[in-house]
C-alpha cells in the first residue's frame, strides 16, 4: 500500500457552492482553445456522433449515385473505374467511418453517465481517439476526392490490390489510412475496457451494468484482439506495394489467401463489434418504453459475450469458395449455425419484454422494436449462408448484399436512430419532434424494406455483386428499379432525421432531467449534464436506481444525493473490477493540447509515408514525439492516491 497519499474522501450532499467549485474545476475553456484541448467525454462523444453522421450522409450519397447507375440495365452514368471507387468508398465509409465511430460516440457520451463517473478512465486518450478518427477519415477521403479512393472493395483482396494490377495511389491511401484509423480504434477500445472495469460508481457491481456497456465492452475486447490483424495486413500490403516484399505475391512464395485470413479474422468479429453495442441500446432503451425491466438481463448479457466468443470462430464462412478442405469448412459452418442461438436469446428477451410490459409507442420505441424484425431477417439470411453448399450459390450475389444491409442498417442504423431519439434530450436538453419522428420512422422503415427485401430475390435470380452494370436477365431490371426507388425513399427518411435534429435544437420542447421516466443513472442529472456529471458520486444498490421505489424491492435504495464529494481537484473514484468497491481516488488530467498535436504529427507522418517524402515522415515523428513528451511529463498533481475503504 502506498502510504504517503493516503486519504479518505469527504462525503457530503450536493450544494450550490459544491457545484460552483466543481464547475470551475471541470469546465472546458470557451473558444478555439477549448475546442482543441477538451477532454470532456461529452464533447468528444458528440463530436464523434456528428462526424459519424456526416460520413453516413456521404456514404449514402455514394450509394444513391450507384443506385442511379443500377436503376436499369446497361446504363452508362458511371465508368467502371468510377463505380469501383464508389462501391469501395461506400463500404469503407459505412463500415469504418460511420458504423463503429457512431457507437463509440454514444458510448463515449453515455458511459460515464451510465456508470456514475465523472469521465472516462483516460480522458486524453479519448480525445486522441477522436482526433485520429477524424484525421484518418480526412486522409481516406483525400484519396477519394483526388480520384485515388479505394477501388478493390472494403475487403480489398490481393492480388488485385497489389501494385502490378493497381498501380495508382488508391490502395496506398487505403492501406495507410486503415493503419492510421486502427490506432484510433485500439486506443479507444483500451479506454473502454479500463473504464468499464475501473471507473464505475460504488455499488455498480458487474451484474448491474447496462447491456449497452456489456455490448461496447465486449466489442472493445474483440477490437483489441483483432484490429492488429487488419492493421498488420494493410501494413504488409503497403510493404508489398512499395518495397517489394512478397507477403501476398504467389510469384515470390507469398499467399493471396493469407490476406483473406488476416482480413476476415478481423472482419467478422468487427461485424459483431458494430452490432453488439447497438443491440445493447435496444436492450436498454426498449424496456423504458415497455415500463418494465428487461426480461432475462443475465441471459442477454451472457449471450452478448457468447456471441463474441463464437464470433471469433466463424471468419472462414467468408471463404467457403476458396478451395479450403471440407473438414475445415464443416467446423466453420457449424460455428456459423450455432451462433444463431445467442442472437435468439436477445430476440426472445426483447419480444417478451414488450409482451409482458405496457408498451408506449414513441419514435424511439418504433425504431427499437422494428429493429427486432430487421435483425431476424438479417439473421436468417446469414444462417442460409452458413450452410456451405448453399453458400456456394449465394455468395457474391446480391443475396449477400441484401443480407449485410439488413445486418448493418437493421442492427446498427435503426438502433442508433432510436438511440438518437432516446438520448437527444439528455445531450441537448430538448426533445426531438415526435410528429416528425413518425414520418422519419415510417419513411426509413418502408424505404429500407422496399430497397432491400426484393434484393434477396435479385440475388437468388443470380445477379452477381460488385458489377457496374448488368443485362436484363429475367426480372433483374424490375427488381433493381424497385431497389433504387426504395433507396431514395430511405434517404429521404434519413434526411428527415437531420431536419428534426436541426429544428429541435432550437425549437424542441424542453426535456428536463428525465423525460422518459427512465431508470438509469444518466437520467438523474440535468439535461444536458454539467461538465462534472455528478456533483456527488452516487452509490448504486440496484440495476434501476430511478425505479427502485416502484419495483418494490424493500430496503434497496441507491443514493444519488449523498456521496463522495471529491472536490479538491479534478477527481473521480476508481472501484474494484467486479464488486465496484471504492478503491482509489483518480486524479484526472486537465484539458491538453497533446492529443491534437500528436494527431497532427501522425497525420504529417502518414502523408509523408504516402508520398514517400522522408523529410515529412521525420518531421511528423518529431512532432508526435514532442506531443508524447508533453503528454507523459510527470506532474505531482496527477499522482494517484488510495482512499480508506468505507
Amino acid at each position, binding site marked *: 500500500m502506498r502510504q504517503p497519499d493516503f486519504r479518505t474522501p469527504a462525503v457530503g450532499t450536493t450544494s450550490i457552492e459544491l457545484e460552483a467549485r466543481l464547475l470551475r474545476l471541470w469546465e472546458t475553456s470557451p473558444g478555439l482553445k477549448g475546442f482543441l484541448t477538451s477532454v470532456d467525454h461529452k464533447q468528444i462523444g458528440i463530436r464523434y456522433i456528428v462526424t459519424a453522421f456526416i460520413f453516413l450522409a456521404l456514404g449514402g450519397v455514394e450509394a444513391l449515385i450507384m443506385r442511379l447507375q443500377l436503376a436499369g440495365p446497361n446504363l452508362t452514368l458511371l465508368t467502371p473505374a468510377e463505380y469501383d471507387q464508389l462501391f469501395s468508398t461506400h463500404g469503407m465509409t459505412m463500415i469504418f467511418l460511420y458504423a463503429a465511430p457512431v457507437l463509440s460516440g454514444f458510448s463515449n457520451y453515455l458511459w460515464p453517465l451510465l456508470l456514475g463517473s465523472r469521465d472516462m478512465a483516460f480522458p486524453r486518450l479519448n480525445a486522441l481517439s477522436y482526433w485520429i478518427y477524424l484525421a484518418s477519415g480526412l486522409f481516406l477521403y483525400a484519396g477519394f476526392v483526388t480520384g485515388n479512393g479505394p477501388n478493390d472493395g472494403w475487403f480489398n483482396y490481393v492480388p488485385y490490390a497489389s501494385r502490378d494490377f493497381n498501380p495508382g495511389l488508391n490502395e496506398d491511401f487505403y492501406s495507410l489510412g486503415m493503419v492510421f484509423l486502427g490506432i484510433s480504434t485500439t486506443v479507444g477500445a483500451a479506454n473502454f475496457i479500463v473504464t468499464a472495469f475501473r471507473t464505475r460508481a460504488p455499488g455498480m457491481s458487474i451484474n448491474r451494468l447496462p447491456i449497452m456497456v456489456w455490448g461496447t465492452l465486449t466489442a472493445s475486447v474483440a477490437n483489441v484482439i483483432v484490429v492488429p490483424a487488419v492493421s498488420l495486413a494493410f501494413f504488409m500490403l503497403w510493404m508489398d506495394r512499395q518495397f517489394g516484399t512478397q507477403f501476398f505475391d504467389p510469384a515470390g512464395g507469398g499467399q493471396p489467401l493469407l490476406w483473406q485470413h488476416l482480413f476476415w479474422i478481423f472482419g467478422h468479429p468487427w461485424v459483431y463489434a458494430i452490432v453488439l453495442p447497438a443491440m445493447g441500446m435496444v436492450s436498454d432503451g426498449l424496456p423504458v418504453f415497455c415500463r418494465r425491466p428487461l426480461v432475462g438481463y443475465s441471459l442477454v448479457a451472457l449471450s452478448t459475450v457468447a456471441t463474441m466468443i463464437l464470433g471469433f470462430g466463424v471468419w472462414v464462412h467468408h471463404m467457403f469458395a476458396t478451395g479450403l478442405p471440407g473438414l475445415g469448412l464443416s467446423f466453420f459452418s457449424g460455428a456459423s449455425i*450455432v451462433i444463431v442461438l445467442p442472437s435468439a436469446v436477445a430476440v426472445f428477451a426483447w419480444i417478451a419484454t414488450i409482451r409482458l410490459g405496457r408498451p408506449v409507442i414513441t419514435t424511439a420505441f418504433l425504431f427499437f422494436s422494428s429493429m427486432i424484425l430487421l435483425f431476424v431477417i438479417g439473421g436468417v439470411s446469414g444462417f442460409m449462408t452458413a450452410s456451405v453448399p448453399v453458400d456456394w450459390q449465394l455468395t457474391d450475389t446480391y443475396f449477400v448484399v441484401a443480407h449485410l444491409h439488413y445486418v448493418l442498417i437493421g442492427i446498427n442504423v435503426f438502433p442508433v436512430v432510436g438511440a438518437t431519439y432516446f438520448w437527444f434530450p439528455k445531450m441537448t436538453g430538448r426533445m426531438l419532434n415526435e410528429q416528425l419522428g413518425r414520418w422519419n420512422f415510417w419513411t426509413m422503415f418502408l424505404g429500407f424494406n422496399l430497397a432491400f427485401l426484393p434484393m434477396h430475390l435479385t440475388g437468388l435470380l443470380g445477379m452477381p455483386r460488385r458489377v457496374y452494370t448488368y443485362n436484363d436477365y429475367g426480372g433483374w431490371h424490375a427488381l433493381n428499379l424497385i431497389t433504387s426507388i426504395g433507396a431514395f425513399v430511405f434517404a429521404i427518411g434519413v434526411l428527415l432525421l437531420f431536419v428534426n435534429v436541426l429544428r429541435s435544437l432550437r425549437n424542441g420542447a424542453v426535456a428536463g432531467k428525465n423525460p422518459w421516466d427512465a431508470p438509469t443513472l444518466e437520467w438523474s442529472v440535468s439535461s444536458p449534464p454539467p461538465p462534472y456529471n455528478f456533483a456527488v458520486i452516487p452509490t448504486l444498490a440496484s440495476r434501476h436506481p430511478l425505479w427502485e421505489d416502484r419495483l418494490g424491492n424493500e430496503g434497496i435504495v441507491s443514493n444519488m444525493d449523498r456521496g463522495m464529494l471529491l472536490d479538491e481537484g479534478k477527481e473521480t473514484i476508481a472501484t474494484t473490477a467486479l464488486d465496484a468497491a471504492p478503491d482509489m481516488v483518480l486524479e484526472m488530467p486537465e484539458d491538453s493540447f497533446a492529443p491534437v498535436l500528436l494527431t497532427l504529427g501522425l497525420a504529417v507522418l502518414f502523408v509523408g509515408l504516402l508520398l514517400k517524402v522522408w523529410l515529412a515522415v521525420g518531421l511528423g515523428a518529431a512532432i508526435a514525439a514532442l506531443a508524447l513528451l508533453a503528454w507523459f511529463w510527470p506532474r505531482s498533481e496527477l499522482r494517484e492516491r488510495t482512499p480508506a475503504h468505507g
Partner: protein
Amino acid sequence: MKSSPLDYLNNAAGPRAQSILPLTWFTLGISIVVCVIIAILLWFAVRRARQQDRLVEMRSIPVERGGNGIRWISIGLIISAVPLAATLVWTMLTLAAIAGPPAHPGLILDVTARQWWWEVQYNGLQPTDVFATANEIHIPVGVPVLVRLHGGDVIHSFWVPKLSGKTDVIPGQTNLSWMQADSPGRYLGQCSEFCGFQHAHMQFDVVAEPQADFDKWQALQREPAPPPVSPEQTRGLALVEYRCGLCHRVRGTAAGAISAPDLTHLMSRRSLAAGTLLNNSGNLVGWIQNPQNIKPGSQMPNQYLSAQQLSDALAYLESLK
C-alpha cells in the same frame, strides 16, 4: 417473368447443383417461416401498445416486473435449435456428397481465369490433341467433368449456377471444381469474385451436348485454322498475324501469342469478349475497332484500321469456323 440464365433457385441441370437445390429451399423456407413467426409475435406484443402522439407523461404508467419472461427465452431457444440441428446435418451430408471431385471424371479441363476472360484448355494423349479455346466450354452430357482452376492474374471465381456452385480461382494454387450436365443445353457461367473494371463482363458458356456431338466438336477444334482461300482473306491473314498476333493465337499461322483468347475457331463461339457481345459480323467489327468503348478497361486496345484493312481482317476472321 422469364427465368434468368444465372438463376439458381428454380432449377438445376446437373447432380452437383441439384443436391444443393433442396437444401437451399429448405433453409429459405425455414427462414421465411421464422420471419413470419417473429413478425406475428411482435405484432401481438406491440398491438396492445398505447399511442402517444404528444409528449408522454410516462410517469403515469406504472412500472412493474411480472410474467415469466425466461420461459419465452427457453421455449424460443429450444424451438430454434431443431431446424438449426437439421440444417447442420443436412449441410454436412450434402458437403460430403458433392464437395470432392469425382473419382473417375470423364473429362479433365484446365481453366485459367484472366482479366476479363476464360481460357479453356482441353488435354489429350498426343501433344497435337491439346488445344485451347476461350469463354466457351463444351462438355458431353451425363459425364462428370473435373475442372482444374488456375489463376492467371488476380482472383476470380468460377460459377455455373445451373451446374455448380462457386469455386474461387486463386493465383498460386490450383483449385478443383466439377460439374455434370444431365441434359443438353447452354448454361451460362459468370465470374463471381470482384476482379477489376470488367468483372461485370466476364461470362462464359457451358455447352452440354451428346457424346457424339461433343466428339465432333472436339475433333474440329483440334484442327488448325483453315488456310485463306481468297485474296481478301490472304491480306486479312497477314494483318491478323502482324496486328493481332502480338496477343492472340491462330493455330497454323504465325499468330502465336497466348495472352489473349485463342482465335483458331473464333466463329464457332457464341459470344465475343466473354459474353459481352453476340458473335456476328457487326459486333466483331465494332469490337475490333473500339473495344474500349464497349468494354472500358479491357486489355484489348482500339485498332483504328482503315475500311480496307477492316474488311480484309473480317473476311479472314469469319473463315475461322
